[in-house]
């Protein structure tokens, strides 16, 4: 790679992009003008609304045996607050009263229809209750969806509380007791956080969101313009005809996107900081006595934030380019980018979640780690170690994203694609018969099944567990698989990898299945230490396994939770998905991806890792043996053995021993035997298989 050529491309792309009005508006226009303007307008609007509400007179109706008593309280309070307003504003005239008592025949109807703000209801004889020294119940009814009514209810609350205090001190005086008698404790809550920490906390909630959104917007337009836009305008091929290598081209374009994203991010940070400072100073001027955070950030934090923005912008720029280069036009690129945009803004919600800390796991999750680090930096909590881990892990992700972009740019079917529009049609007649689904339709099928499980499967299982499981497996998983294969004219036999079962791989599989059960027991005893199974999940399993107490129950359970998943889930994952991915991917990437999808499919953080590993194993067996029936047998055996063990169909002594294994893990001897069995099985499969799935071209 020649840095001079990269520089030439970078310089030209910057010039070209900065002449594009769309990019300029997104990059410079939004942060510098629109966005502080919107904030200040919003601020003014809030202030206006507030003073309007203050000037509003609340309309109150009273239902009581002694309305005049209550009215007297309200008037007293209203006069007092009017005096306070006049004193504060230094006006000679008296401010108007803010509560008026109105008569109403149907007060409840009037309240819900907005003709009345608050209705005070006192049941029983108020005066008599007060005279006898008892407690009178007072209801303040209001409409919580109306700001006017909410505000009125607050005023009435204040007025009634003041009246209560007065009545209380009268009663105490009568009894010859001091005021403090009814107030043995005076409790006050005082926020001891230093001012910079308070403001940091608020900034930590707002800034990461704004920062990521703005960085992304800063990256999106140039990324789309320099890839999909260039394809659309027909200049990509011109560039490809020059001596610049694909790597130099991708580097030049990438640095352009990265620089522009950084510029947008920093412009935004500065603009947002300035706007917030302005807003806070307005607030403190307006709301006297209310605690207003002061913006105060240590210089070191600002420098670290700028430092962390670098890998963040790097990552977002590279990912955006990867997505945009797949599109053939600017408009198409926008369609692809939008879901990515939503996806990367989700982690920003992390910062607002209570209890989520930058821990050993999430400091490696891209974007989420930066968001949490931002928050901690704002409150001065983050240490050097965490900063460097986040920086390094983001740098690694950024490099991976850039490598992906470079790989995509090397592919002529991506860079020079001439197919118009999205490669999809709803007319079945337009499809040609094919040996497997395309990778895109295989992944689409997976997504469809996931959605159906979420809406149909989980509802069915909640209604009734075992029938629900059967409906999920056959109706929600296998049904869509068969329909999609029919629709896309995919050959059933080759798509579902229905090769003949041969003896040796079968023998290997029969060794692998029981060994896997033992290894999985061991794995879950490890995992339980790090990530204990929550009680509610445990309960679902217990209900499920309890139904296997009788022989009929056990048979039904085996059908629903061992045989059905072995057929239906295998058809989806080791059939349609695996063969679809194999159209584009080499065996191992396809096997690993199938396993990962199988893990995700179980929608549970506790089952993610073991099921993903199982998914990889099953996919490997199918690729090596060429027959899905092998993985079906292994899947059925693993689930079946698990059920038989868990449903207590074993002699009592063995069950008791299994319970200790669940917590303490397998004895070393047994673990060794399981490992040996597993490896022997794998060796048999590996060396006796002739792959039946033809290699891809």
């Amino acid at each position, binding site marked *: 790679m020649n840095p001079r050529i990269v520089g030439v491309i970078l310089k030209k792309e910057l010039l070209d992009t900065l002449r594009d009005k769309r990019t300029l508006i997104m990059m410079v226009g939004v942060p510098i003008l629109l966005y502080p303007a919107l904030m200040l307008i919003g601020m003014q609007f809030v202030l206006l609304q507030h003073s309007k509400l203050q000037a509003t007179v609340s309309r109150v109706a009273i239902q009581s045996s002694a309305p005049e008593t209550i009215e007297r309280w309200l008037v007293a309070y209203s006069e007092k607050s009017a005096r306070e307003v006049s004193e504060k504003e230094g006006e000679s005239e008296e401010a108007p009263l803010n509560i008026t008592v109105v008569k109403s025949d149907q007060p409840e109807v009037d309240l819900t229809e907005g003709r009345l703000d608050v209705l005070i209801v006192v049941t029983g004889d108020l005066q008599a209750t007060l005279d006898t020294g008892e407690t009178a119940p007072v209801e303040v009814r209001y409409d919580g969806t109306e700001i006017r009514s909410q505000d009125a209810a607050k005023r009435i609350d204040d007025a009634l509380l003041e009246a209560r205090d007065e009545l209380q001190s009268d009663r105490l005086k009568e009894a010859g007791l001091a005021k403090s008698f009814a107030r043995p404790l005076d409790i006050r809550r005082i926020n001891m956080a230093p001012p910079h920490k308070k403001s940091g906390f608020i900034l930590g909630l707002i800034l990461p969101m704004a920062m990521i959104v703005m960085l992304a917007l800063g990256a999106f337009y140039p990324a789309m313009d320099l890839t999909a836009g260039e394809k659309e305008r027909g200049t990509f091929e011109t560039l490809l*005809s*020059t001596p610049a290598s694909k790597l130099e081209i991708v580097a030049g374009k990438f640095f352009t996107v990265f620089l522009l994203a950084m510029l947008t991010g920093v412009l935004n940070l500065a603009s947002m900081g300035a706007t917030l400072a302005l807003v806070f100073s307005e607030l403190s001027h307006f709301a006297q006595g209310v605690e207003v955070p002061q913006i105060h950030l240590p210089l070191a934090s600002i420098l670290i934030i700028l430092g962390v923005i670098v890998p963040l912008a790097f990552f977002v720029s590279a990912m955006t380019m990867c997505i945009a280069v797949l599109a053939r036009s600017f408009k198409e690129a926008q369609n692809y980018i939008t879901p990515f945009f939503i996806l990367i803004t989700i982690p920003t919600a992390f910062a607002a979640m209570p209890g989520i800390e930058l821990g050993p796991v999430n400091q490696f999750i891209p974007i989420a780690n930066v968001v949490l680090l931002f928050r901690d930096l704002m409150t001065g909590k983050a240490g050097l170690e965490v900063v460097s881990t986040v920086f390094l892990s983001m740098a690694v992700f950024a490099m991976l994203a850039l490598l992906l972009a470079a790989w995509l740019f090397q592919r002529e079917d991506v860079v020079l694609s001439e*197919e118009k529009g999205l490669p999809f049609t709803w007319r079945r007649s337009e499809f040609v018969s094919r040996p497997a689904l395309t990778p895109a339709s295989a992944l689409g099928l997976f997504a469809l099944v996931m959605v159906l499980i979420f809406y149909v499967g989980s509802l069915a299982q909640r209604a009734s567990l075992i029938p629900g499981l059967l409906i999920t497996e056959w109706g929600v998983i296998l049904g869509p698989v068969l329909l999609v294969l029919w629709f896309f004219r995919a050959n059933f036999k080759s798509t579902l990898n229905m090769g003949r079962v041969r003896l040796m791989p079968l023998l290997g599989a029969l060794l692998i299945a029981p060994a896997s059960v033992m290894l999985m027991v061991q794995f879950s005893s490890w995992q339980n230490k790090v990530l204990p199974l929550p009680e509610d999940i445990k309960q679902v399993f217990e209900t499920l396994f309890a139904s296997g107490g009788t022989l009929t129950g056990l048979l039904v359970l085996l059908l629903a939770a061992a045989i059905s998943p072995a057929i239906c889930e295998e058809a989806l994952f080791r059939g349609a998905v695996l063969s679809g991915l194999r159209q584009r991917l080499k065996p191992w990437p396809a096997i690993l991806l199938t396993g990962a999808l199988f893990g995700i499919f179980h929608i549970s953080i506790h089952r993610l890792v073991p099921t993903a590993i199982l998914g990889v194993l099953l996919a490997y067996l199918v690729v090596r043996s060429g027959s899905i029936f092998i993985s079906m047998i292994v899947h059925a055996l693993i689930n079946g053995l698990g059920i038989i063990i868990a449903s207590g169909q074993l002699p009592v002594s063995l069950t008791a021993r299994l319970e200790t294994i669940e917590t303490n893990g397998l004895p070393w001897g047994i673990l060794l035997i399981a490992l040996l069995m597993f490896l022997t099985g794998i060796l048999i499969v590996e060396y006796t298989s002739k792959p039946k799935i033809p290699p891809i071209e």
Partner: protein
Amino acid sequence: MLRAEELRKVFYPARSKPVEAVRCASFEVKAGEVFGLLGPNGAGKTTLLRMLGTIITPTSGHCWVNGVRTDQAPDSIRREIGFLSGNTKLYGRLTATEVLRYFGRLYGMTDGHITQRIGELADLLAMQDVLDRRCDTLSTGQTQKVSIARVILHNPKILILDEPTLGLDILTSRAILEFIVHAKQGGHSIIFSTHYMTEAQTLCDRLVLMHQGDLMAEGSPEELYRQTGADSIQDVFLRLLDQRGGNGS
């Protein structure tokens, strides 16, 4: 100068069956020769030229430029080639001069050399008045002239021109054809595709006729007339098509 051996290209569209765009194309182009590629739309001309220009890689077969196999040093091979097709457009937001400077730098030319070449080419192609205008404001003819300047700027030995006169008015077409003659006299090898038969007849030293990915015939216009007994290239083409039909292919 340039030699192609059994070039073949298969595309795998997502929605339909694989397409064999070029089947087993072998030929040689000598220095100072105008080599024509003739055929109807969809014959595979553009795909073949893209392979020669190292824009895409052949599914099988190889290509040599000055004895160097193109897949072994594609980036440096492109220095020897000027490539123009309907898909090589110009950057609309840049001026003609900015575009030419950009490409000159990508070809490793010095700024002084680029300025000198822009001056020469502006005279040759009569385009002084467009140099400082943004490319998105130029007419089709003016754009094509700037594109030609872009292709010849670094003085490549081989020019690959895919339908250079398509959609142009007579005057600009004539200017482009005159330029091809001029380039040939300057010792450049020119490979160009067209579906205007008369253009090919007057310009080409040798030509190949393409149909559905196959090279049907190769030779000088006179040789082709002799082989088929026709008196125009159009006639040659139609007769060859008839023969193919008669052969049952």
